[in-house]
């Protein structure tokens, strides 16, 4: 099925990071392509949300919501400064 893009998860990312993230730049860990989160190909209709590199389709980000708490795995996407330290660890999702 057709993927959407990072715009579709802007709200969820705001919850996790505490700020607007669709313009954040990162590098795909699989192929080295650099791009913004808004351009990632996003698959929403799954047990979690999977973002993939537009160039190589490697998994860049995975968001899951477990018992109401949103978590993000960024192992496939190296964020550039100022986001290079990842999401704040103690952030509570906005209710």
């Amino acid at each position: 099925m057709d993927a959407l893009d990072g715009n579709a998860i802007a709200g969820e990312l705001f919850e996790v990071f505490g700020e607007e993230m669709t313009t954040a730049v990162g590098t795909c860990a699989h192929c080295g392509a650099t791009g913004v989160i808004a351009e990632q190909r996003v698959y929403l209709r799954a047990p979690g949300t999977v973002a993939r590199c537009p160039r190589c389709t490697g998994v860049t980000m995975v968001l899951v919501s477990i018992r109401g708490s949103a978590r993000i795995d960024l192992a496939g996407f190296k964020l550039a400064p100022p986001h290079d330290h990842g999401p704040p660890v103690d952030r509570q999702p906005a209710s």
Partner: protein
Amino acid sequence: MARAALPRRLNWQLARVVELVEEAAQTTSIVLAPADWPGHEAGQHVDVRLTAEDGYEAQRSYSIASGPEDDHLVLTVERLDDGEVSPYLVGELRPGDELELRGPIGGYFVWNQSLAGPLLLIAGGSGIVPFRSMLRHRSATGSGVAVRLLYSSRALGDVIYRDELAEFAAAGDGVDVSFTLTREWPEDWTGYRGRIDGKLLDEVSWPAAEMPLTYICGPSGFVESASGTLVDSGHDPRRIRTERFGPTGT
């Protein structure tokens, strides 16, 4: 309303439905008065959340149709027959109801009058919604930036904001609007026919040498095709911003 900074927190709030405006056969604009709206930029969206009495929830995103300078927040929703949320918003929702939403959301697919043009806007179906916000912002601020809008719809009855778009074009201040119908068209149709391709884009869009700031919005396949065609004919991909619409619920 002053131009809004991006919010520091993204909280759910209730918005009272003020009015419903039928835009096309299956498409309605919902005029809202949110409890605490911080303002927005053209191109941003809101998340809408519906909750049933037993706690069941469904959530969808909708582009903001109103300009940042408008009095009310407006969403334009196309009813999908097999949808879960859109048949409620277009069909059940009525003035006086409260709609839960959060926003504004998005910092990528936005335009404000401080960004240089010329602008190339390419819309497929309900992808026209964020462009209405951008055009209203352009008018409200007196921005003279040159705009070429290409709007693709299945049939004439599916075209949203037809009169308003004609007014923008008729104002004579630099907005050019082209329509293409892909599935059926009236016999006396003077607009374009068929899906957007390289030939149509060559005719309608700014040449690559003009370095337009390009926004493409619509279904994924539409966006991929239009974007690819532009890049193939020499447009700079870094000057192209895209937003894909599609089913988001399970």
